[in-house]
């Protein structure tokens, strides 16, 4: 044992936490080394001085403050809590849904209501015209066929018949 090795053994020696073998080694060194012996005595004195400081306790309000802060902590919930919306979120979602339905069901510009009515009337009129055209479609097709019927154009032109004069009254 030398003085350098005492660095790691001196505190455990003073605490009484060395094994019997190591303690004997330290004691043999101390018997031969006056400097380490003095150091051991002075370390003991330091430990005694540190023990003179009184313990500092918490103030009377300490417990109450801790309890208040703990009570203010949010409660921990299970995984299913994620599925359960909080009342505020549920209320906000319901309100938003009502608002969207209401806005969607009303005219976008109440000041231009006649304009929208006119557009609706025009659309209805257009539908009627389309219906009439579809109804008359066979006649129109016949006309088209006759107008473009080529054999008719190759027929000799007949002189115009004089229009019989109507008897004079």
């Amino acid at each position, binding site marked *: 044992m030398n003085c350098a090795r005492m*660095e*790691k*053994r*001196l*505190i*455990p020696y003073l605490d009484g*936490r060395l094994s019997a073998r190591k303690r004997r080694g330290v004691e043999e060194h101390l018997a031969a080394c006056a400097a380490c012996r003095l*150091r051991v*005595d*002075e*370390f003991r*004195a*330091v*430990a*005694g*001085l*540190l*023990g*003179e*400081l*009184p*313990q*500092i*306790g*918490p*103030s*009377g309000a*300490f*417990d109450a*403050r*801790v309890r208040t*802060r*703990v009570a203010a*902590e949010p409660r*921990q919930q299970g995984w299913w809590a994620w599925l359960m919306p909080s009342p505020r979120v549920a209320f906000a979602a319901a309100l938003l849904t009502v608002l969207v339905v209401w806005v969607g069901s009303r005219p976008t510009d109440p000041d231009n209501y006649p304009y929208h009515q006119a557009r609706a009337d025009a659309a209805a009129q257009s539908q009627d015209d389309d219906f009439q055209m579809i109804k008359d479609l066979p006649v129109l097709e016949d006309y088209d066929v006759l107008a473009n019927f080529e054999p008719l154009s190759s027929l000799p032109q007949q002189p115009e018949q004089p229009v019989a004069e109507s008897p004079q009254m």
Partner: protein
Amino acid sequence: MMDVKAGDAQSFELLLQRYRTPLVNFLCRMVRDRAQAEDLAQEVFLRVYRARKDYVPSAKFTTWLFRIATNLALNAVRDGRHRQMEISIDEPMTADAEDGTERMLDLADRRPDIEQHLVEEARRAMIRRAIDKLPEKQRVAVLLHKYQELDYSEIGKILQCSESALKSLLFRAYEALRVELAPLVAQSQGQVQKGRVQ
């Protein structure tokens, strides 16, 4: 702590009763301000409460508790939030560790005269200053070793160093204190010598 983890509020109350005084004492010596030490101790308990569901008993509860406290204290010291005031943190007020009630000790019962009281106060102030002068890590090691009586492995885990390194750290801390408190040490040695002679 396992009961606290299981949701037993009564067990948290027991932890509070048992560890509030050691925690406040430790934090007071670290940040040198009683009000801040109490705030930090509250924060420690709050963190314990928040972490109760995730607590795994891989180490002693005290190791975990003082590791939280040490981290908070070192952050507070490094942030410079502590006040550099010479306040009397060792005022004659003490808390009964058993029931937590505070009481003022009767000065007349403890100290026969005012002169003796002043001498004792001067000694304590000197000891406090010597502790305050220690580097942060050495101070933590001495406080946990001397006042909390934690074993080397626990302190090593708190300071994240090996047992061997911790023993060297403590040696250097006591060496620094021996130098700083030389007059008081010599006084104590003189009394010891006188006692041996008599």
